[in-house]
């Protein structure tokens, strides 16, 4: 490996690295604005100037200069110091001195680097330029006078998000960052430009003037808005969650999160169930915990076990599902279901419901077949990964289902199940290439599996996977789904499925754990809703037990890869709300079937003992195509030829938290307008 000297210290580096990267290898900090590891190199801010020998006797932009063998890189010479001061002075010429009223204050690269590398004062006496504000949608607030034209946002939106909506117009002193004629940015990842912006030009609109970064309590947690389980940091002050930021996690989200993950949190303080309610004469009235729990216990005691049903929602933590399974199992209830959409998986081995390529491992796939899934809306961060590979020319995609704009090119193979089962016999070029592919994968979406004929489609897809040696991947949309399936939170012997439970006359008592995606209006059972938001389930409920949202409890979540992750409590539950497992524990007492744990730690110990997969925190099993046993997927009936569609119809409104969020409602309205215009 070639070697270079950085400030006299010799380091080895990989060929192709830039001078900036080599200097970082040696532990030297190089200030930068435009350079970003995950974006293309622009080299236009000039902040990373260093001295390089051999070379011309002037400072060089280290981000764009390839390192070579025997090079001497100097980052602490007087020339470099002077160069940085000069660049900083230029950058600050047109930057307003409005840090006290800027939302970026305290976490601003320009502020920090001006302190670290700039001069102590300004020599500039002319007029500064001012730039008009732009409109970039309901999420991104612009103060364009602060912009230093690093073009990170342009490169992110074009390269990573694949929705080229932001550009740099005009030239020289007049350049401005803008969208085309104030169009809203139409990417599900758009708000990441706020994190990327090194100054306060692009800031968060919903969070504007809310808090300073040093006032916030930062809690590292896991996202539940989709089934990826992105690593997030929850910033809270007092009882309120103010914002969510991404955490670096190369295995899942790199350093991006979707707009829903970031902005649905204002839904955490709206439409909340903050005390128990019981229905009297058709109306819900506030009640005490004792009253509500006694009522529930009395109903459960008289009902026969086969007339009791439990449905777990999409945002449930594993512990509460475990507690529910233990409690209702001890009562002899077999009608348990965590699959509100009726997903036809749950029998068979664990691999049949996992994303076996793993999220990071999917980058090794050279051909992927999407079946009834639109990853752009179901898992935007994963979609960015597909796009990354596709842009690199290393990935070919075929789609059976909807012809949506995925931000990358694909071959459209058909709409329905017939195109899927016909694939094995097809002699098309795509199939030829698929046969030759070294590492093909199939991704089947929740939309395809959740239909009435989902079982038959799953079987057809499994056959295709077997024929072509493809790695079997299920892309879930519900954060709780894999955890529920791992727990066996599915109907036991004689048990009813979620859809059967919701039908009229099926049950006497229906217990909903945050289940809002299923229509239970037909059910005439006594309905108990344990959850956080006044959404579909609560409207139907006869008793409401206020639970805790994902930011309000410690909980385990299993993502679509089968990776168990720890969510952490950032704030306490609203009002009289309690953590879900402790509600079930209290209920078990009243039923005389006391659960054998008094603390979350004891519950977890029991969970790990009964289901060892949960004990391996942050481990994604993954499996090669040959090692996956798909024999558990058996056809149930025949597939109809209705077109396969994605399970996510409105990206911004998939769960009760997002539906309660004003920001998400705005985004959904903008997105609906945009699609209406596009349709015209």
């Amino acid at each position, binding site marked *: 490996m070639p070697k270079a000297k950085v400030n006299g210290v010799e380091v080895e580096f990989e060929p192709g690295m830039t001078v900036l990267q080599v200097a970082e290898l040696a532990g030297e900090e190089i200030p930068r604005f435009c350079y970003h590891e995950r974006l293309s190199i622009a080299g236009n801010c000039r902040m990373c100037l260093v001295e390089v020998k051999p070379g011309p006797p002037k400072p060089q932009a280290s981000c764009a200069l390839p390192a070579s063998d025997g090079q001497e890189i100097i980052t602490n010479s007087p020339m470099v110091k002077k160069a940085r001061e000069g660049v900083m002075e230029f950058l600050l010429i047109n930057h307003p001195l409005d840090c006290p009223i800027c939302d970026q204050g305290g976490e601003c690269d320009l502020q920090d680097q001006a302190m670290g590398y700039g001069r102590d004062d300004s020599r500039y006496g002319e007029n500064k330029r001012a730039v008009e504000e732009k409109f970039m949608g309901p999420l991104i607030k612009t103060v364009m006078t602060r912009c230093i034209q690093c073009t990170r946002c342009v490169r992110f939106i*074009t390269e990573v998000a694949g929705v*080229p*909506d*932001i*550009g*740099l*117009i005009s030239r020289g002193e007049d350049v401005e960052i*803008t*969208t*085309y004629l104030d169009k809203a940015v139409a990417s599900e990842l758009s708000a990441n430009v706020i994190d990327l912006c090194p100054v306060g030009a692009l800031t968060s609109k919903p969070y504007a003037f809310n808090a300073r970064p040093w006032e916030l309590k930062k809690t590292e947690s896991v996202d539940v808005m989709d089934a990826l389980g992105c690593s997030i940091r929850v910033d809270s002050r007092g009882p309120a969650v103010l914002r969510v930021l991404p955490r670096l996690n190369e295995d899942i989200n790199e350093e991006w999160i979707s707009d829903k993950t970031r902005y649905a949190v204002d839904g955490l303080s709206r439409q909340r169930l903050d005390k128990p309610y019981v229905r009297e004469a058709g109306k819900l009235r506030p009640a005490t915990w004792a009253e509500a729990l006694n009522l529930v216990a009395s109903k459960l005691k008289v009902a026969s076990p086969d007339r009791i049903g439990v449905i777990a929602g999409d945002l449930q933590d594993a512990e509460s599902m475990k507690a529910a399974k233990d409690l209702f199992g001890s009562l002899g209830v077999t009608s348990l279901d965590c699959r509100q959409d009726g997903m036809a998986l749950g029998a068979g081995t664990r691999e049949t419901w996992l994303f076996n390529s793993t999220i990071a491992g999917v980058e090794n796939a050279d051909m992927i077949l999407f079946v009834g899934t639109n990853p752009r809306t179901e898992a935007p961060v994963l979609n960015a990964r597909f796009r990354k590979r596709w842009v690199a020319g290393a990935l070919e995609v075929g789609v059976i289902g909807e012809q949506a704009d995925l931000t990358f090119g694909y071959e459209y193979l058909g709409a329905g199940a017939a195109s899927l089962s016909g694939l094995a016999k097809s002699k098309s070029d795509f199939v030829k290439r698929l046969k030759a592919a070294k590492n093909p994968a199939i991704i089947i979406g929740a939309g395809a599996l959740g239909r009435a004929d989902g079982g038959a489609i799953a079987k057809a897809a499994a056959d295709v996977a077997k024929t072509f040696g493809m790695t079997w991947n299920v892309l879930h949309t519900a954060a709780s789904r894999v955890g529920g399936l791992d727990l066996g939170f599915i109907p036991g012997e004689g048990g009813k499925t979620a859809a059967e439970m919701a039908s009229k006359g099926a049950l006497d008592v229906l217990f909903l754990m945050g289940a809002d995606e299923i229509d239970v209006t037909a059910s005439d059972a006594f309905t108990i809703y344990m959850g956080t938001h006044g959404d579909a389930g609560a409207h139907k409920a006869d008793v409401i037990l206020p639970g805790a949202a994902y930011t309000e409890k410690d909980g385990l979540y299993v993502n679509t890869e089968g990776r168990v992750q720890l969510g952490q409590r950032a704030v306490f539950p609203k009002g009289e709300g309690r953590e879900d497992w402790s509600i079930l524990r209290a209920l078990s007492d009243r039923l005389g079937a006391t659960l054998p744990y008094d603390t979350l730690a004891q519950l977890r110990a029991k969970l790990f003992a009964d289901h060892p997969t949960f004990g391996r925190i942050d481990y994604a099993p993954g499996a090669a195509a040959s090692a996956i046993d798909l024999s558990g997927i058996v056809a149930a009936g025949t597939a109809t030829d209705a077109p396969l569609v994605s399970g996510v119809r409105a990206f911004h409104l998939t769960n009760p938290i997002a539906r309660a969020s004003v920001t998400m409602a705005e985004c959904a309205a903008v997105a609906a307008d945009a699609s209406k215009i596009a349709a015209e």
Partner: protein
Amino acid sequence: MKQVQWWISKYPDGRQQSAVIPVLWLVQKQEGWVSEPAIRAVADLLKMATIRVYEVATFYTMFMLEPVGTMALVQVCGTTACQSRGSEALLEVCRKRFGPDSHRSADGKFYWQEVECLGACSNAPMAAINDRYYEDLTVEGFEKLLDAFAAGQTPPPGSEIGRQGSAVLGGNSTLNDPKLYDGSAAKPIKSLPNAAPKGKAKAPVA
């Protein structure tokens, strides 16, 4: 459209976006300016994002992004050479006749702007009117010129004082000796400058 296809076909497959500047230029030739629907049409034609075309159109100052005068687009050079030869007076003429810089006149017939060097410095001051160069302008001559355009004529381009190209004002000042041209001043050449040295070359002095 034929010209558009010709430009597009100049670039290899998958690189059709390279034709964006010529295509925008054709649009401007046809319409006089580049309109917003035109930008969208060009983006669709070349299969690129609208914002990318917009970036190009705003970057180059030669693309007019608002309607220009029906009679003439007057571009007066205000860079150093023209300025020292009196372009300020020409700018003042425009300001008086048409109003502020980079605007259409009230009657919509003219659009004028001050531009940077157009490369006719030796014939300063100059103005480009509808892409034709009018040089060696005086205030009176410029006024007359604009009157002619207002009347719908197209005066012949070139120098106002009638000099040919950028020939020297007042005739040539050197190489005037007729002896140069009748052969009488010529002397036989003894050796060509780069010819091989005759005899032994001297060793260079160290």
